[in-house]
């Protein structure tokens, strides 16, 4: 079970969080023309990297904030966590 540092609450066990997927995906802007391919890529296409991955976690049983977590998908090492509006490196 991971031990995740929430920038709002401190270190908490994984069972307080829900996983939210790739944090680098950017939703296309509203009311903008977008091709079928680009839209499909946004909705469905995700990388599954081995190694560093910036991902979203939702502190549902805590502060209810979405946070960004930089984690190694093969070792589970967590390098850094960010608030939702914080710029990532």
């Amino acid at each position: 079970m991971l031990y995740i540092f929430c920038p709002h609450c401190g270190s908490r066990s994984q069972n307080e969080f829900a996983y939210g997927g790739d944090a680098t995906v950017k939703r296309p802007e509203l009311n903008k023309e977008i091709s079928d391919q680009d839209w499909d890529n946004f909705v469905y296409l995700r990388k599954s990297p081995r190694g560093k991955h910036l991902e979203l976690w939702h502190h549902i049983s805590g502060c209810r904030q979405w946070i960004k977590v930089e984690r190694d998908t093969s070792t589970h090492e967590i390098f850094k966590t960010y608030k939702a509006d914080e710029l990532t490196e």
Partner: protein
Amino acid sequence: MSQDYRLDNIGMVNRNKKISFTFNGKKYFGYEGDTIASALIANGVHLVGRSFKYHRPRGFFGVGVDEPYAILQLERNNERDPNIRATEQEIFEGLEVKSVNCWPSVNFDIGAINNFLKMFFPAGFYYKTFMWPPSFWYKIYEPFIRMAAGFGEASIKHDKERYEHKYEYCDLLITGSGPSGLASAYAAAKNGARVILAEDKPRYGGSLLTSDVNIGNQTGAEWSEKIITELKSMSNVIVKNRSQVFGYYDHNMLVMSERISDHLPKTQKYLPKQRLWYIRAKEVLISSGSIERPLVFGNNDTPGVMLSSAAKEYIKVYGVLVGKKPLIFTNNDSGYETAIEFKKNGVNPLILDTRKEPSSDIITEAKNLGIEIKYSYVVVAAKGYKKVKSADIAKISDNKKDLSNIENIECDCICVSGFWTPSIHLASQSGNKSEFNEKIDAFIPKKSKQKENTIGSANGKFTLEETINEAFNKGYEVSNKITENNNKVSIPTVVEKKSTEHDKFWCVPLPKGKSYKRFLDFQNDVAVTDIELALREGFRSIEHVKRYTTLGMATDQGKTSNLNGLQLVSDIENKVVPQVGHTTFRPPYTPVSIGAIVGREVGKHSKPTRKSPMHQWHEKNNAVFVDAGVWLRPRYYKQGNETLFEASKREAKNVRKNVGVCDVTTLGKIDVKGPDAAEFLNRVYTNAWLKLPVGKARYGVMLREDGIVMDDGTTTRISENHYHMTTTTAQAANVLSHLEYYLQLVWPELNVNVVSTTEQWAGAAIAGPNSRALLMKLFPNTDVSNEALPFMGYKEADLFGIPAKIYRISFSGELAYEVNVESDYGNFMWEKIIEVGKEFQIQPYGTEALSTLRIEMGHVAGSELDGRTIPYDASLEGLVSKKKDFIGKRSLSRSAFTKPDREKIVGVVPLDKTTSIPEGSYIVKDPKAKLPNPKLGHVSASCWSVEYDNPFSLAIIKDGKNMIGQKLFAMSPLKNKTIPVEIVSSHYVDPEGKRVRA
């Protein structure tokens, strides 16, 4: 039966407390502190089971977690426990155990015929034999395997015992209370660290209990007693015995199973049977010790062949002799220590040492005691079927290839020592890649992966002096990183006898013309020939050899077999062991009961139960409840001998005819506030929200980005910047997370806040033609006329002094209102509605009637919005704005979603107007068509229409709109039913929606 093998003046069991127990129905005596194994051995019993594959007789091989043989079935307090290791389970008064893997009895086992058919049971036997024909699987192979396999029978009864989970945090977790565990715990605790020290056995001290050493001016056992007593008295230390740390998981979380009551006849009040500890440790010291390795020779699985360290522990801890004519077979000095203990207790052992001319303090002591020793000697084969009776021994040549001078000598046990294997399981689980150490012929941990260090013999340190020094230093070092107290305690001096190098020889060659089975894995019956065969057949990777032969795959996880298996593969392949590598260690280190894993999350405790404020009223009024997510909701209110069908029909009819009231507290409620709230809702919902006036409600549908309907519900504009959103009961939590996602991550520029208010409001839906008349009496000071409070209107009102909110919305399709009050007033509101409603023939209705009402109205719910439907499928296209963008809109123009024959919601009526259609039935054109019969769609919900008094269902079928009027068939293969039906509009009742606007 008397305890013929019990010694009088040695051991740690309580001689003042005699305990009786039964084994295979026969009564035996032991003492408090005995294990089943020590008590049976004291009684001269060595045959306890049959092996897994060949059903060969099985005795005791070890003295703890490493035991591969003595797995028993236990009866305790009318509960059955399989997979009990006799070497771990302590006896208590009235304990009943029996053997497993044998039928009809341990002395006469039909399966032992496998032993004589063993040419049919080679490596890969299961893969090769139980293959063809496939029809044999069901009737012949599977029953045979089931009868012959397994380590006992699990109970099929509900386990009444209590198991607990506990979360704990500490600076330092130490796994094992041998010399390294005690020393490091002491050093760290004295330096102010919060320490947990876990010991899997009942007694603390590990090897100090059995070795002849001195620490400071005390014996090893005295010193361990002193240290543990002091640790127990310290407030920063938790000391636990009977506690096995079995798993090392991510981010330094370890899991420990504590056997609290297993050694007692009955679990005591307020105590659980077992407790599972989830421990998050800043640092971990693995001090799990090492396990002696067997030597491999002919029939080395015969009862009476056991580890020499086990024989020593039986003498020193339990005061029990494993035999009176022992043969010690060793390749190192450890066997001598066992021989010395036998000798000191009046038994003459014979030592066979594979080494040519070793010399050390220990060997000298043995010689001085007059113990007979044969150098360059080996055991060729054990003789005897159910117990060792003699052994063929031989002189072995210097190159260890040739045997000579074979002779048979009498003996009643053979104690083997093939040197020691560090227990690196936990380090390996944490991700530590181990390295092979040539000096000890075994793997030791290499570079720490997580915050873990391995110390003592688990780290390949086999002298006490090294161990104590390393442990004191590590305990100080890791604790000081955390506490920075700089409080270092002095390290005591150690006195121990010096030993010399071990012999790398471990597998005795077969004498000419003999084909003795030489076992590597004792629990899974894997012999030398099986590994040889696997390699001949082309298996190379050790992971494949493991799976093909089942080497190391049994419940003992190969604790005694792993290294010898690797040695053999490397010998045959002419490689060195590190090239072969070892298989992966995975948790659990020892078997853990399912009960402990589940903990208290059983039955009603498996999830929280939420009840509305009106719950007690429902109970008093004969409500029959149903689980709705985590909520308990009334399904129907039973009158007299009514069935569910009769009651729900009565309740639904009364809504259509008079008025009914339904508890809708469970609906999800979310407050949406802020200057940008309207804009936010406009993006979340598919329809337009910018122009909704204050005091009005609107029905909305929200999508996921992939275009699938996520949820639906009404949202009301309470004031300029305040909206009250409702969600379905099931989706309430998901919708809140969804809204937070968009507000925090996608559109942080929107000034909006959302918060769940589900539990702040109690809700009652009042539905039926009489509902307005009832409302007028409930709210005499409020104008609730159709003009003042039209359909989708909203008003705040006063309910007998209580502030209430009235929403004119309808799920039932009737003229209806939802009244909300603060939760604490919920019951007051409910009782008032019932009391005032009497003159209008009010009746409460449950979820079953609620379903009936919405189904015959064609209102969609979870069974239609099932994660596959887009708005069009549910006839909700009128709610999809063409003008504005919203979440998921772009997906709706994907080609799969715009196909003209997309499945769409319709109504279904059986032609005979009497046969109910099972939910989940397929709609097909021709019930006799060849399989697989092309299906047009499926029935999503069924009810008995109270409006027309016949069955009615909703279905989602291909090209639904154009199917209306067609005669088709509903097929339910599960219920074996084929029902001719007609497709009709999904709006079966009041298709124009006049009633809700009345």
